[in-house]
């Protein structure tokens, strides 16, 4: 498929076809566009910043290395997140085998860096936020891996069921089932935050 034909699919796929033809600048554009979303998605899956960045590096390396065999059969983002999900879930499985679930019960050892803004919250406000963030983190971490991935793609990447299904390699109805079960679990754990 040529560049013109890919344009009907999506602009990112067109950029990737340019990368295939040797255009390094297009790879830079794709990296700039998707860097943060891939890292944040992987971070929320594995919940370790250093690991998330390492895995995200591997995602973009694989994209670059497979440029010569790239064929735009799906949306670029679907392909990208398929690689990212595959690597992150593999890492989680290895980690679970290696250490069991003890990591999830650890303290907030690798919490995100605090955002510095002009309107700095008080220490008390920051502590409340920290406790809340930790509770959310644990609630998401307690979900089964595929449910977790589905929720993160649905919530933060605003992906449609069909796209999530392609990333996870399952049917649309299976994705709906994953999502509804995940949200049901999260409602049970987080609904009390409504008042806060």
């Amino acid at each position, binding site marked *: 498929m040529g560049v013109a034909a890919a344009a009907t699919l999506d602009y990112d796929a067109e950029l990737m076809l340019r990368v295939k033809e040797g255009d390094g600048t297009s790879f830079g554009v794709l990296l700039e566009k998707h860097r943060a979303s891939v890292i944040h998605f992987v971070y929320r899956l594995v919940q370790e910043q250093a690991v998330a960045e390492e895995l*995200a590096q591997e995602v973009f390396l694989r994209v*670059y290395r497979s440029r010569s065999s790239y064929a735009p059969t799906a949306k670029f983002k679907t392909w990208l997140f398929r690689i990212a999900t595959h690597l992150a879930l593999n890492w989680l499985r290895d980690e679970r085998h290696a250490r069991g679930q003890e990591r999830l019960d650890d303290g907030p050892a690798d919490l995100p860096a605090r955002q510095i803004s002009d309107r700095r919250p008080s220490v008390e406000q920051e502590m409340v936020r920290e406790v809340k963030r930790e509770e959310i983190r644990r609630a998401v971490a307690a979900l089964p891996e595929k449910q977790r991935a589905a929720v993160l793609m649905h*919530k933060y990447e605003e992906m449609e069921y069909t796209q999530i299904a392609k990333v996870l390699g399952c049917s649309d109805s299976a994705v709906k089932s994953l999502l509804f079960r995940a949200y049901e679990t999260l409602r049970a754990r*987080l*609904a009390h935050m409504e008042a806060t």
Partner: protein
Amino acid sequence: MNCPMEDRRPAILVAYAAGELDRETASALERHLADCAACRPVAAGQAAVWKALDAWEAPSVSPDFDRRLYRRIDEGARLSWWERLTRPFRSMPLRQALPLTAVAGLLLMASLLLHRTGPTAPVASQHEVVGANQVESTLDDLDLLRQLSTADSAESGHPDAM
């Protein structure tokens, strides 16, 4: 009161919290929520989950992320064939890499053995076949000569032919 949305409740309330419903459907749902005691807490819970997840910020990306990535790309371009071959195994945990390495080693050894013994075996058997043919042919020739010799003797009245 039975809720007419009972079967579709999760799908519609998740879509509503995500802002995926069109305005008309959302308005109809809001009217329904005002009356339905079964859907209202689920909608409120889903809204709370949505808000909580919004509050979960991911950390900012390291400033040297791209530099590290491009360095790895450059390093990859300079790799030797052996490094390219072994690269997939390097990031693998030991318990995965060991069996794979063992299998790869066995396959390599088997391949070498087959390569070494493969061409020589048919040659050896060919020699054996040729040898047997030669022996058989020689025996036939000898038999023929003996018959000829017997016939000559009979014709010449040689005593051996009697």
